[in-house]
């Protein structure tokens, strides 16, 4: 609405460009492009891509691959946040799903392990959804319970040990395999993202989610099943986290109940915010959140590549995030106009 006018060299023809700038995805994309540009200049060979053994290698592919679990978590978080909610148990669900899979895959085979891991994630989602929609708990408190308890539960399952998986090799395909020369994880994200987008566009679910987020009272009076919608988004978010957990444990060939997906929920919330989503609920953009996830991963990868000491990494990350968030704040754009 009150998008600041872009600093233009030709003020006579602002329409096309400033219209494009007003597109909700414009700023996240610009931020990503800036970061990539910076990395291309400072990190040698950042843009280099090569085909080895029929697989595409390079920093860009690496970023996409590493961002995959975060993108899955961000998709779910997008819907949760759209209903004015929040889910801080994502990391814990990652740990649970990974642990369950690693526990079972050796003895019961791949199919059972995957089903059980996703089943465990589903249970987590049902639990969160029940607390928020049926019992009316505040989302942050409701999901905090699982955030705290989940990791403990996962550690109970592994007796506090890191579970390493040696076989079957098929288990490593999901998080480390290749398909058509690209990492499998990218296809997983594409399929989940595509299905979600389809679900939002082709059914009224997207409309209902936004309605519940913007005005839950009006939604109920218009006949929307508000409780069911809220229930759904938590279940969906947990399933995404479960899938991310499978991906992570498959990639590192082990289940680390202590560290797998640690603080992933915060990165997911950040990705949604960077993608233009408002924590106050309402309008959401799945594409924006995916771009947000890529911004975070590009940042992390670039910082590592530059050899910045790990202690400083978080600070650099915070500075960039701060800058992007400020550029999106409405107070900032009003202030700049004035």
């Amino acid at each position, binding site marked *: 609405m009150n998008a600041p006018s872009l600093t233009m060299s030709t003020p006579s023809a602002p329409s096309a460009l400033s219209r494009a700038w007003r597109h909700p995805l414009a700023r996240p994309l610009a931020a990503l492009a800036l970061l990539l540009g910076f990395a291309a200049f400072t990190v040698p060979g950042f843009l280099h891509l090569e085909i080895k053994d029929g697989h595409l290698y390079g920093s860009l592919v690496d970023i996409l691959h590493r961002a995959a679990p975060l993108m899955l978590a961000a998709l779910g978080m997008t819907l949760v946040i759209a209903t004015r909610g929040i889910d801080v148990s994502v990391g814990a669900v990652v740990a649970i799903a990974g642990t369950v899979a690693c526990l079972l895959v050796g003895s019961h085979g791949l199919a059972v392990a995957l089903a059980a891991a996703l089943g465990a994630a589903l249970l987590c989602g049902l639990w969160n959804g029940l607390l928020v929609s049926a019992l009316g708990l505040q989302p942050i408190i409701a999901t905090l319970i699982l955030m705290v308890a989940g990791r403990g539960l996962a550690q109970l399952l592994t007796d506090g040990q890191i579970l390493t998986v040696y076989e079957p090799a098929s288990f490593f395909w999901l998080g480390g395999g290749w398909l058509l020369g690209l990492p499998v994880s990218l296809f997983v994200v594409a399929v989940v993202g595509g299905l979600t987008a389809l679900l939002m566009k082709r059914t009224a*679910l997207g409309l209902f989610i936004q309605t519940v987020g*913007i005005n839950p009272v009006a*939604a109920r009076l218009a*006949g*929307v099943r508000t409780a069911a919608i809220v229930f759904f988004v938590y279940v969906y978010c947990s399933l995404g986290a479960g899938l991310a957990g499978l991906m992570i444990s498959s990639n590192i060939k082990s289940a680390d109940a202590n560290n797998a997906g640690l603080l992933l929920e915060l990165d997911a919330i950040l990705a949604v915010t960077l993608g233009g989503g408002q924590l106050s609920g309402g309008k959401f953009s799945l594409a924006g959140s995916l771009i947000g996830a890529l911004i975070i991963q590009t940042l992390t990868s670039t910082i590592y590549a530059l050899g910045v000491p790990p202690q400083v990494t978080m600070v650099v990350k915070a500075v960039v995030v701060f800058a992007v968030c400020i550029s999106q704040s409405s107070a900032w754009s009003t202030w700049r106009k004035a």
Partner: protein
Amino acid sequence: MTTTAQQPVLALTGIHKSFPGVKALTDVSLRLFPGEVHALMGQNGAGKSTLIKVLTGLYQPDAGVIKLNGETIAPRRTEDAQQHGIRTVYQEVNLCPNLSVAENICAGRFPRKWGRIDWPAVHAEARRVLAQMDIDIDVTAPLSRYSLSIQQMVAIARALRISARVLILDEPTSSLDDAAVQRLFTVLRRLRDQGLAILFVTHFLDQTYALADRITVMRNGETEGEYLASDLSRLALVNKMVGAPPDQQPTRLDSRAPQTGAPVLKAEGLGRRGALHPLDLELRRGEVLGLAGLLGSGRTEAARLLFGADAADTGHLTTDSHRGRWSSPRDAIAAGLAFCSEDRKHEGAIPDLSVRDNILLALQARTGLGLCMSHEQQQALADDYIQRLGIKTASADTPIGQLSGGNQQKALLARWLATEPAVLILDEPTRGIDVRAKEDLMDAVRALAHKADGAGMSIVFISSELPEVLHCSDRVLVLRDRRAAGLYGRGELDERSVLEVIAAEPVTA
């Protein structure tokens, strides 16, 4: 009792205030004299709250003068108004229940000694203020230990603590029982006799007459007039609140559809504790049933129970397909009901979403998830209603929040028409929209019900404006004190008798 010869302590003249799309106050005047209780009366949306907010510095008027003891003031913030001695106690007690009475009274301005809070002085100060009001309680006890009425008194004590000249009470009695109201009134009379000017906002007639010396009536954002309470009969007061009779006898009776059809919705003993006494109601096919009554008479409560927006705890409803009570609005919608809430902003519009999505919402919610209409169908349906109802919007993609009040109202009406309901409940559909839009809307309502083939919609029409109810309705149910007080059929609709029923002494249960 005051005389006009005295100088008013507070005088507002020619106050104007507009919001985008709405004229909230037009040329409003108000005078307050020291040592009087002045009642500010008016229906829903009459402009009482806006006027109070102008007085307390929350809103700045677009035009007009506020004079305090003859000097012009322009409060820009609530702190300014407080500095001038204008103190307000709001409807909801906004104190901290877990703090002590004394802390609540002195919060923000604690007596200090050597930079630290002087607790003995805090307690003494609290006792002093309460003693003024003839109240003796333990000021060190937490506020939550006391009843609502005492909490209300503490709120007043807090307001009075520092040099109050004008005390504004915004519906202070709405959460109090009779005994508590009497206690409050005793205190207020005492304060009045001490020379305080008290502005008392209420919609309870009997309380007004029990307490007020002078009454200012507002209607439609304008000052209807200022009267001595002793000179104004209840009937006259109600008449001024709900509006003068229509200029001409409406011609609608002739163009009316023939006798309305079979009952489509029947309520027997429908009620909810604290909201509505058990109510019987019958709605026939193709008729407009008006619900008349003052604010708080049970009009809105009845509408909400009929639709299942609130759960009824007694009685049952009968429609063609259903008998019992609604467990949620979804049940009512499935049975062919529709409900436009009086609170457009909080219970109707989804402001960030497009006009199209807003129109489609109820239909889509009833259809469910699976059968989503194609984009072309959605667009066609939205465009159809935009055109039929004359909704002024740049396009169907415009967020509904950017539309004027009247056009938002039409879009919300479209939301329900799209579900093709058998029963349409309209709660204050004309509120906050301009005169022209009101007439359009009332024409639309009548056209919906009065179809030549007798297959029109059945409509429950609620308005604070009695002329509108009389103009629109085939039958009128008058509510008073949360129960039915009279039912008027065709040919019996007579403004005066309806007014008498609305204004009558409250029934003592």
